[in-house]
């Protein structure tokens, strides 16, 4: 599926839902957990609030703020035929783009997470609009060939970034300095964004944002490394010991990797996502860690990868989404164990007709740096 195929799918869904118009909205605050219908509809990652307006006849216009950023829409979508309009105010920009004519049946995606100062005005401008999130994101439940290529490129950057972490991390270095170094390195490799959680402790309770702690011998560094290429995120989850890992830590990490392997094996087309989570839990439950397989210790065993669509959603027991080829998501057991603390281990996978294929070149393995 390419971008045009997805657009055709959305148009078909509009016809089924009897919608004349779909408006995708986003405030420009890009975050790993926040789906972006403007990116789904236009492929454009905006600086400010933006909207993509799709008519049932296929006409597509993207409205961006600030107005001077409109030229970038055209650059990003050369050949696709998306109109670009710059506006100083997103609501007025949408109304101008529609020429004052509001179609009778309008769907809006992204409304619920829109800042209320914008959403209130959108609601007033389109009082009869219905939610179109499901329509837009159902069509984006699988990735396009372009998005999968970007995800693979981001995975390569993530792995090179991780190798850089192993090369530069040392006792006495602060978490913050290591995080900045890692982000800087991945940007130099072409990552346009990076969601990074990096922390260290002899016994981590969870993975957290960096907080200035200085690395010490015996620390376990947790790194959730999530670069983006052309707005497509990919993630790897890694664990590094400062000094020689204990035998127990090595054993427990191998257990978590084994659980991840079972999860990857369970991910097949036609299988519900919840089964992937169940397969991971089964390995850990068999070793007596059943109570640690549920909140507050663990909420999910993976997730979809935006910035556009977050589908197929969380690797969680209650996710009944049936897996299909070209779905992209993380499988990460990321488990707290009482003996070792929290351990990070995870790979991004793309679904093929045969099953889940990790798009990394090296699977997570417990690493160490010199004390």
């Amino acid at each position, binding site marked *: 599926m390419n971008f045009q195929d997805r657009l055709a799918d959305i148009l078909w869904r509009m016809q089924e839902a009897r919608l004349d118009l779909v408006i995708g909205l986003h405030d420009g605050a890009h975050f790993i957990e926040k789906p972006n219908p403007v990116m789904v509809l236009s492929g454009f990652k905006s*600086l400010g609030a933006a909207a993509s307006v799709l008519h049932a006849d296929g006409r597509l216009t993207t409205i961006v703020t600030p107005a001077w950023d409109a030229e970038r829409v055209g650059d990003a979508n050369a050949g696709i035929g998306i109109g670009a309009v710059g506006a100083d105010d997103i609501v007025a920009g949408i109304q101008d783009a529609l020429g004052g004519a509001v179609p009778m049946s309008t769907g809006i995606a992204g409304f619920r997470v829109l800042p209320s100062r914008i959403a209130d005005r959108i609601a007033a401008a389109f009082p009869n609009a219905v939610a179109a999130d499901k329509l837009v994101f159902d069509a984006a439940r699988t990735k396009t060939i372009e998005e999968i290529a970007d995800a693979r490129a981001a995975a390569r950057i993530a792995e090179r970034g991780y190798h850089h972490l192993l090369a530069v991390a040392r006792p006495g270095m602060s978490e913050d300095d290591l995080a900045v170094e890692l982000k800087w390195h991945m940007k*130099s490799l072409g990552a346009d964004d990076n969601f990074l959680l990096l922390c260290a402790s002899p016994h981590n*309770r969870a993975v957290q944002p960096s907080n200035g702690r200085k690395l010490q011998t015996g620390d376990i560094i947790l790194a959730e490394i999530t670069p983006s290429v052309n707005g497509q995120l990919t993630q790897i989850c890694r664990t590094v010991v400062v000094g020689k890992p204990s035998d127990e830590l090595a054993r427990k990490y191998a257990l978590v990797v084994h659980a991840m392997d079972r999860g990857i094996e369970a991910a097949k087309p036609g299988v519900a996502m919840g089964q992937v989570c169940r397969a991971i839990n089964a390995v850990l439950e068999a070793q007596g860690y059943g109570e640690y397989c549920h909140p507050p210790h663990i909420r999910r065993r993976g997730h979809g990868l935006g910035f556009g669509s977050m589908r197929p959603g969380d690797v969680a027991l209650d996710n009944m989404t049936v897996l299909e080829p070209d779905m992209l998501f993380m499988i990460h057991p990321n488990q707290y164990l009482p003996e070792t603390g929290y351990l990070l281990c995870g790979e991004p996978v793309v679904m093929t007709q045969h099953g889940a294929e990790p798009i990394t070149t090296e699977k997570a393995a417990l690493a160490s740096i010199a004390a």
Partner: protein
Amino acid sequence: MPESEFTRRIDTLWQVHPTATRAIVYGSPRHHAELAYLTNLVPKLEAAVALLTRDTEPKLFLGGGPNMVGAAKPLTWISDLAPLRSGQAVGQTAVAGISAYKIVVIGGGAMPTAFRQSMNEAMGGEATDATADVWKQMAAKSSHEMAAIVGACGVLHAAVAAIDQSKHTSVTTAVLAGERAANQAGAQDVRILFSRNGGRTLEPFVTRVNETADPFQVYVAVRHLNYWAEGFAHLSARPNAAKSKAMDVLKRVLIRMRAGIPTRDIANLIESSIRSDAPHPVTMHSCLNTIGLGLEEAPYADAGETIEAGNVYSLKAGLQNVAGQHAIVSAMVAVHKGGNDVLWISP
């Protein structure tokens, strides 16, 4: 920032709203100026909500799950921290034992609309929005705040100098040198836009750009101790008529930047000084804004009717001339009763 600074700010809030007994303060990683002003917290990943009360200890609810509580502790003077469950939970906690009309909301415009709706439903009504009042409070900077902004300007200087020194290598190398210099100087956040077409348009980092750009027009914003500084720089070893004129305009306006001057006069002076040339699209409608805890869009950072003593402004002059040259330059200006101090100016 000492805790007394925050209690003083909250006391002022209660004075402005004498009937209010509780305040809900919302902040996100993108929009957090009011939350940072009252709690010192800048959310790192997901939103946070402070519940301030007249008589009891304040609470802070943190998005992102229980794991974020520990990470937030060093970032705020508030000691009662808990996970942020939902808008409904915030509303229920806020309204417990009182009526909604005794609650004020700050930063409500930045709340996701579903969150705000569920919060309002739980409260049984919409609380008074006090955001604009807090922004009025935020205008006059304390000595602690001014020191933080001066520090941010030092970081800005380091970033722009690093970009200037690296501009002959490649666009990406120069931008990354700027980011790195800012981080090494203590920046919590760095945002850089650059131009590859002589300053006609600006763009963010999307992919590697291995070419150089001369002139190299950049915009740099840095956050240091929670306070922002921003600046435009038009970098070239060669003389450039557009830049020379923009700098002349900027310096001419700086002489006029005094407390009590209508902000409209500043805009008019820039417009008339550009004369035969056209205003740059980037600065056409935003030649002057306040700056501090927020790097915000209008209306929050609007400069208001008049220049005020105690506030800090970002002043910009941008133009495009008939020769097709473009340039934007700027200054960070602290205004006081006796005139102004230029904290940073484009090189």
